[in-house]
């Protein structure tokens, strides 16, 4: 069912005149709506030869995960504008305002929309600032071990032979080390903090990526286009970067987006256990841990951090799923 008509005409201006229809789907709210774009994705082929004939006029179907992008948008909005939108200081409270319920409950005030904790700090402000910590730690971890894993996996799969064997046995060895014990150890030496978490998981996580990337590059390096690249004179580095890596980037993105959700939960768990960030930090997991004791008469202290975690994780997972489809050139035309 067509809902709206808008798109881009590249040759003239950014005036919208091509077709874009949105199809309604029962599960559309969760998995996204399907939309037909015309001429949006072959823009580059126009740019390449302006005077040439029009490129193939095929319809490009792209589904848009409104829910996923919405969640992620909300998340990043709070990350970027935390200072602007948070109504109170997340670290300071007045004991006179202790454990006020959310605004719509009896006894709540509009000053504290989602209520206050036992120290009188605004829950909403703490949630908003907590998004920064979640993003910082999860992206830090992923960037750290993702990069390490991808590089080692590429080298391992591409070189083969002895190098491959050494790196993979190292990965086996690494996976057998219990990460949580290492975290205890590092937390004992350097004190529990965001930095400790990033370093621990950064060191511990790479075999997972390394193995998958190795497997993919192992199969890719036998492809004829890699042999042809050699015949053309490509160096190993160039083949890895420009032929093998683009073909595994999908996998890495899927892994990373699924992982980021998992890591947000993991950080919350660690904070809950007292191994993560320490009070008065406003990490979501820490908020859960602190609110746990008051759950019988202050439900808002655990409910809202829980919802925040769900929203962030859902946003990353749904968007990751969508990105995977969008980045695969074969998926564009159906």
């Amino acid at each position, binding site marked *: 069912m067509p809902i709206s008509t808008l798109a881009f005409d590249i040759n003239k201006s950014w005036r919208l005149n091509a077709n874009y229809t949105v199809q309604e789907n029962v599960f559309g709210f969760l998995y996204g709506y399907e939309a037909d774009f015309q001429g949006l994705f*072959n823009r*580059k*082929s*126009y740019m*390449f*030869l302006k005077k*040439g*004939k*029009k*490129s*193939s006029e095929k319809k490009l179907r792209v589904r848009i995960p409104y829910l996923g992008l919405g969640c992620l948008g909300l998340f990043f909005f709070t990350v970027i504008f935390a200072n602007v939108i948070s109504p109170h200081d997340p670290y300071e409270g007045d004991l006179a305002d202790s454990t006020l319920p959310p605004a719509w409950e009896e006894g709540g005030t509009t000053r504290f929309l989602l209520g206050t904790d036992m120290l009188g700090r605004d829950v909403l402000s703490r949630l908003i600032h907590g998004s920064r910590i979640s993003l910082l730690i999860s992206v830090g971890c992923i960037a750290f071990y993702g990069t390490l894993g991808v590089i080692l996996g590429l080298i391992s799969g591409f070189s083969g032979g*002895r190098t491959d*064997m050494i790196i993979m046995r190292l990965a086996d060895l690494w996976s057998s080390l219990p990460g949580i014990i290492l975290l205890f150890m590092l937390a004992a030496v350097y004190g529990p903090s965001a930095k400790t978490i990033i370093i621990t998981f950064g060191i511990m996580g790479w075999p997972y990526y390394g193995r998958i990337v190795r497997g993919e590059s192992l199969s890719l390096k036998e*492809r*004829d*286009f890699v*042999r*042809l*690249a*050699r*015949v*053309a*004179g*490509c160096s190993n580095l*160039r083949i890895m970067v420009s*032929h093998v890596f*683009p*073909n595994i980037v999908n996998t890495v993105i899927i892994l990373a987006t699924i992982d980021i959700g998992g890591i947000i939960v993991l950080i919350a768990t660690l904070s809950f256990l007292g191994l993560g960030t320490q009070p008065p930090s406003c990490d979501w997991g820490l908020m859960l841990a602190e609110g746990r004791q008051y759950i019988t008469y202050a439900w808002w202290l655990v409910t809202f951090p829980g919802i925040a975690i769900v929203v962030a994780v859902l946003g990353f997972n749904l968007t990751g799923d969508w990105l995977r489809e969008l980045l695969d*050139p*074969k998926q564009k*035309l159906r």
Partner: protein
Amino acid sequence: MKNDAIISAHELKKYYPVTKGTFFSRTVGYVKAVDSISFKIKSGETLGLVGESGCGKSTTANVMLGLESPTSGQIMFDGRDITRFSRQERFDFRGNIQAVFQDPFRSLNPRKKVKQIISEPLFIHKVSSRKEISFRIIQLLDLVGFDPHQAGLYPHEFSGGQRQRIAIARALALNPRVIILDEPVSALDVSIQAQILNLLIDLQERLHLTYLIISHDLAVVEYVSTHIGVMYLGHLVERAPSEALYNNPIHPYTRALLDSVPVADPEDIKEITLEGEVPSPLNPPTGCAFHPRCPLCEPRCSKETPFMREVAPEHAAACHVCG
């Protein structure tokens, strides 16, 4: 100089070691994939290599392309031995020999656009400016029968035959003098095969190319080649101009191969039909490699290795009995 061989192989050997153990491995034997083959291709001519699967045709192509280094032997190109090149020399030389491979669905990077695929060799060798490269792309696309506007498409938007034409355009990018065609049409529909072969012949005339075509399909090789080499178990058993080979095959294996081509008239009697399997290259037969399956086998065939003997000008065969 025109009649001189542009590329030739001398006593080319490629043995693969068979190893045991993982880390401290030792060699327990060799697979003789290519065993002492020699041939010459003159400028503008086409040599077809035929043989059953596993006879070393593709290994020969890989060695010629420098993808693998030969165990011994020489490959001479314009009087230079390309197997002894240094890294830099090899890189500079790459443009002279290019290749087209069998499966066009695997030989084009699915993540790159046609223009990127075709222009990659140009970028690597930094032969021209960006502007010249985009002209060159149009020129190359035109050469293989595409419109310039198709440069921005991805390989999956093309059919098998079209993809193979893209692969050919890429091979032509650096103005090579020799193109090695490894089963260029065997992955394609029969109707498309002729189209690609005609394109190859047409390009050969226009650009004065030299081909080494590798195929198991005798009809394909006959159509394109000026000379044909027949391979069996890593050995070249017969080498002749195309017509001579088809009209007057010497080696019993060549005869069997030609007899195995299906004919329209079932009354035609097949002279030689082969039985049994190709022996393992890990443990090849002594003497003539073909003797266990040869209908004309004599006692000395299992003892002495036959060498190539000229039976007519340019026509040589490795057989004790025939010729």
